């Protein structure tokens, strides 16, 4: 391998080398960090909500008029919906995952703590809630129908029994024995509440929350003013037809209310992660464009060099180089330039990652991104230079004897 002479020759035309090397360096730095961000967003978007998302949807009812009795409307609605064919479970809810809207508060192990032990989302629902959400009860029991209360924002009676997610239970009761465990929430001087059941997993409404795995189910119907929310779980495959059915039946049963936000959980997932998805698409597009521009740059520069050095190629062939020797020459030259660029690029990648860490509290770029980036860009460079290099190898030796 004639690396040293190739390198010496390259040093004589530093500018072209620097131009390609810089493109490679910047591409590596940007692509590594961009891929990492994409990975993070994809991880975020793929987190399971703990709900059955395929078969569930929600609908929101807001009544108007002085005579609107939201409590009796809720009872009537629930009875009506539960009687519909194709319905697996219906529950009244105040909040759900993937919605960025809901209620959260702190829980304390001891009364009167200055700082809460854990912060959790509150999901008010009834004994059909676990079925409707599609959550998995892994310890203890569900609510009993007689435990389900009813209260409003102005008239609170905080329930004394609750069901927690496993994550919240571990935070509250790190020694285990969460079922039957007692804690305090709401006003300072009151009775403790008791955990009667644990569900495996359910996400809090806010997708950006640090405490996204902390959810507590509370047995009560809690209308917000005149509005009530229902979560409906259909038999598999019947969701879309049931959505239309539910809307028309509820509208028919009571005209003193507005029905809105008829949305499936799948649609909610798409909406709530729309920005992350957008960022992923934008970053992905830039990565592809960068790789394309850099590859084209290599092709262009290499083609130019082949054209400029046609005479030299012919001379080398005359002096005994085979076609493969010429091919290898250009491949090696490209390899050297790419490697130098990649070294600079690696440093830039880590520098860029550090800057992101400091400015945006982003996590550190994992070590394997840069080496994998090296390999990919080496391959890209070699692929890009293949065309011009093959053309070079086909320059006939007779070129050497042509008069200028």
């Amino acid at each position, binding site marked *: 391998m004639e690396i040293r002479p190739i390198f010496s020759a390259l040093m004589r*035309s530093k500018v072209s080398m620097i131009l390609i090397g810089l493109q490679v360096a910047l591409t590596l730095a940007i692509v590594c960090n961009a891929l990492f961000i994409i990975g993070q967003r994809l991880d975020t978007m793929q987190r399971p909500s703990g709900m059955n998302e395929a078969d569930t949807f929600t609908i929101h009812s807001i009544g108007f008029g002085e005579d609107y009795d939201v409590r009796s409307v809720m009872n009537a609605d629930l009875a009506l919906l539960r009687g519909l064919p194709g319905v697996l479970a219906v529950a009244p809810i105040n909040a759900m995952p993937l919605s960025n809207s809901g209620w959260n508060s702190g829980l304390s192990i001891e009364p009167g703590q200055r700082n809460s032990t854990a912060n959790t989302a509150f999901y008010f629902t009834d004994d059909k809630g676990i079925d409707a959400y599609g959550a998995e009860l892994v310890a203890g029991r569900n609510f009993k129908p007689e435990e389900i209360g009813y209260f409003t924002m102005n008239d609170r009676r905080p329930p004394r029994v609750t069901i927690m997610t496993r994550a919240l239970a571990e935070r509250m009761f790190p020694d285990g024995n969460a079922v039957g465990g007692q804690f305090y929430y709401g006003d300072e001087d009151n009775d403790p509440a008791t955990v009667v059941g644990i569900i495996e997993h359910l996400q809090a409404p806010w997708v950006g929350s640090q405490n996204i795995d902390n959810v507590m189910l509370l047995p009560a119907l809690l209308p917000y003013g005149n509005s009530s929310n229902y979560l409906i779980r259909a038999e598999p495959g019947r969701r879309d037809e049931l959505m239309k059915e539910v809307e028309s039946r509820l509208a028919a049963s009571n005209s003193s209310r507005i029905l809105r936000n008829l949305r499936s959980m799948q649609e909610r997932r798409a909406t709530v992660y729309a920005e992350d998805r957008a960022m992923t698409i934008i970053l992905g597009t830039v990565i592809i464009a960068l790789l394309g521009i850099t590859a084209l740059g290599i092709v262009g520069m290499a083609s130019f060099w082949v054209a400029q050095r046609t005479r030299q190629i012919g*001379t080398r*062939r*005359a*002096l*005994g*180089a085979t*076609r493969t020797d010429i091919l290898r020459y250009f491949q090696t030259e490209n390899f050297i330039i790419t490697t130098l660029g990649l070294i600079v690029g690696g440093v830039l990648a880590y520098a860029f990652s550090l800057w992101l860490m400091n400015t945006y509290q982003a996590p550190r770029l994992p070590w394997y991104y840069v080496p994998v980036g090296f390999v990919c860009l080496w391959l890209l460079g070699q692929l890009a230079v293949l065309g011009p290099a093959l053309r070079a190898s086909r320059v006939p030796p007779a070129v*050497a004897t042509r008069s200028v």
Partner: protein
Amino acid sequence: MLKMTHLQKVYRTHLIETHALRDFSIHVREGEFVAVTGPSGSGKTTFLNIAGLLEEFTGGEYWLDGVDVRGLDDNARSKLRNQKIGFIFQSFNLIPDLNLFDNVDVPLRYRGFAAADRRKRIEDALTRVGLASRVKHYPSELSGGQQQRVAIARALAGSPRLLMADEPTGNLDSLMARGVMELLEEVNRQGTTIVMVTHDPELAARAQRNVHVIDGQVTDFEEEPRMRGTEQHAGNRQSDLDAMSAA
């Protein structure tokens, strides 16, 4: 050494056929210094390309140092060329981005010699042409005559059996030309066969024998080589070379 019988080269482009060489025969014996002459367009360059294994031919036979060249593939021809032939071009064809050492090194690398072997050959070759002191310089820093000497060193470094020279003094002034010709004569005296292509009759006269080409055919073919007087003036030659180096 070099034997061509009834060689033919036809260029075909679309509907036009050009007969660059027709029924070309030549026999160069080992140790000869032959000049191939003729007007421009006579086919001298084609002969050079074919003789130097730079191009294929369409008919006839060609034996180089006992090897039948017909049917050799591109790789085999490259290897044969590398081992047996040294080239000297009219426009020197030195690689501008490499220094003298690396320029002379080029054919040796393709030969596969070990590093120490190559270094010795390069130093010997450059010494032989009187440019050993400029080994780290670049071609752009040398005069035309000096560049051609480097090219000769490059041609000789691999100990070739045959030197092919294409108008070696075409781009040089008369002083430099004389120095290069004297160097070629010296090389020939030391045993290397030389075939030189030129249209300059004065240059041709310095060879032992001439082969004249017109319209792709050999005329004026001499079977017996004319012997030329050889004089050994080692001392003068050395100082002449020094003078050449400074040119």
